């Protein structure tokens, strides 16, 4: 059984083989789930965009398994692995993509725009950078309430660092010394735009000093490195050392969305170390270290596939949202809805 959101995580991931295996299994599940979404998209069964985390699973899983259920997490589009590690169920992910009325977003919002605020799992809005200050707000409120020892984590791409929202929020976290971990996946492109058109510094980690916060760089294709660096960053934040900026270098191994063939990606990346598939790298390491064997991995894989297929089959039988049953209001205060006077 995989660890779920109801079991304690965080602080337990130091034993190296266990952490690797745990993270690897989330990576594998996320990869397989992504592949299913891509297939459903190609079959015309998903409306709107499909966004994969291919190549970013190591970074995302390393973050997810370092969080506890008392923490706050605002993942972004490529964080399927982190979401699962933080406790999202496969069925809720499928429900959101398929617009099921039983999903956390009830068909109102879709695809990667999913979460459960009450579980500390914040559903992103599309506007890049906008979630960082929201995480700050949760942390700020918890501090006011005297809750300590928790952290808040959120993820952005290289492109999202160009938003004003990113800057205002990171600076705000620094001024308030909040336990924020901001993980930047520098995957060389923002949609089609290469990083040379996005920033001019050597590494985005160079920004940390300008906010007076800790900065960390890591090879995002290497699970071992991600576990170490992200683990350290989370531990620092948890220990009260203020915001942590983690910048991982890697390559997006898919299109921006599944509509995009990513033909603009410079071939040089694909053959470079950046272009390694983190899932393969992690698997090789696990086998080489004999932390488990190929047969066990095959079992995990087929278990995950079965779970995914079952989830899809189940969701396809679930009711679509009914416009006639829908309460057409954005207000929670019923007496203020016009016509309700």
């Amino acid at each position, binding site marked *: 059984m995989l660890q779920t959101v109801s079991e304690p995580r965080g602080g337990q991931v130091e034993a190296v083989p266990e952490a690797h295996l745990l993270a690897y299994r989330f990576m594998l599940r996320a990869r397989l789930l992504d592949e299913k979404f891509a297939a459903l998209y190609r079959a015309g069964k998903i409306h709107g965009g499909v966004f994969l985390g291919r190549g970013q699973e190591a970074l995302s899983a390393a973050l997810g398994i370092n969080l506890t259920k008392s923490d706050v997490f605002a993942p972004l589009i490529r964080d399927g692995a982190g979401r699962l590690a933080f406790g999202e169920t496969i069925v809720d992910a499928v429900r959101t993509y398929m617009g099921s009325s039983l999903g*956390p*977003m*009830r068909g*109102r*919002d879709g695809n990667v*725009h999913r*979460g*459960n*605020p*009450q579980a500390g799992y*914040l*559903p992103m*809005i599309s*506007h890049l950078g*906008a*979630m*960082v*200050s*929201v*995480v*700050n*707000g*949760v*942390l*700020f*409120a*918890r501090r*006011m*309430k005297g809750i300590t020892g928790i952290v808040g984590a959120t993820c952005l791409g290289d492109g999202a660092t160009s938003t*004003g*929202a990113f800057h*205002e*929020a990171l*600076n*705000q976290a620094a*001024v308030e010394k909040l336990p924020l971990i901001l993980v930047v996946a520098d995957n060389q492109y923002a949609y089609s735009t290469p990083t040379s058109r996005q920033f001019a510094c050597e590494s985005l980690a160079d920004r940390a000093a300008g906010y007076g916060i800790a900065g960390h760089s890591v090879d995002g294709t290497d699970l071992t490195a991600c576990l170490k660096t992200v683990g350290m960053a989370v531990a620092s934040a948890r220990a009260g050392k203020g915001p942590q900026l983690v910048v991982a270098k890697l390559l997006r191994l898919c299109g921006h969305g599944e509509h995009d063939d990513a033909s603009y990606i410079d071939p040089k990346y694909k053959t470079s170390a950046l272009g390694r598939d983190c899932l393969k790298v992690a698997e090789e390491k696990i086998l080489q270290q004999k932390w488990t064997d190929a047969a066990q991995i095959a079992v995990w894989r087929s278990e995950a596939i079965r779970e995914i297929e079952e989830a899809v089959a189940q969701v396809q039988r679930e009711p679509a949202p009914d416009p006639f049953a829908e309460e057409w*209001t*954005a*207000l*929670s*205060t019923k*007496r*203020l*809805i*016009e016509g309700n*006077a």
Partner: protein
Amino acid sequence: MSLTYLDAICEAQAHALRDDPRVFIYGQDVGAFGGAFKATKNLAKDFPGRVIDSPISEDAMVGLAVGAAIEGMRPIIEMQFADFSTVGFNQIVNQAATLFWRTNISCPITVRLPFGGTSGGGPFHSQSLETIYAHYPGLIVLTPATVEDAYSMLLEAVAIDDPVIFCEHKFLYRHLKAEKLPSEALPIGKARIAREGRDLTIVAYSAMVQDALEAAGELATEGWEVEVVDLRSVKPLDTDTVMASVARTGKLLAVGESWPWGGVTAEVIARVTSEGYGLLDAPPQRLNAKDTPVPYHPNLWAAHRPTVRSIGAAARKILRH
């Protein structure tokens, strides 16, 4: 003792902070300094750690409030001027306003906007932004016109589970006075008959209510009985009270200080004519500011917005219809 509109806002915040530990205030210079307009005077001292200076980061200010609201708090955000809320616009309309609808978790934040024209304010310290916020689903937009409403509506705003845009008029801050704070009030969502009359209904809100009342006073000396409806909240907008008034008077003038395209006056007229067409016995009219930014020089400023005189003139035209 006499209290100003500004005192009422400060008192309402003190009251909210005192009664509800979930309330805090976050904004530029709101702490020890007490805010650019002194709307949070002494609050940082009286409520340590709960009235907090923010960096000049309107986007992050609102984002933080939303996060805190998710965590069960009831933050009040002070924008230094309404005009600067355009920088926090995205977080207000796309983050705060959509949260409940998307997640079923309510978002009880109050964003205070010191708004409206004052002489010498100029194009970036005078704007009336109720229209852009009221257009978005998920927001409550309040526009108190009296000291009493400034107090009771701000208290209610903080208590409401939805995000509230609280438009407090800078011109009224020190201009309006009352003897004491109210112990009860109309609920939000109800308009108020600020003056009774049977010849014409003037629908107004915020500072324009005061100008409309003055105009009505002048018209009374000419024998006209003008009814003035104070909308109090522009979203929700109390169509029933407006229609009941128009049913009595048969004539409608909608007055607003904001720009002429769209906005409260258009919405009021569209509702009355589509839902209560037969009630009117003359064409409804509207009076707004001119379609330019708000000018700096007092001469231009006074000509840019509706005034007692221009309201009176518009009213006479309808009355003589």
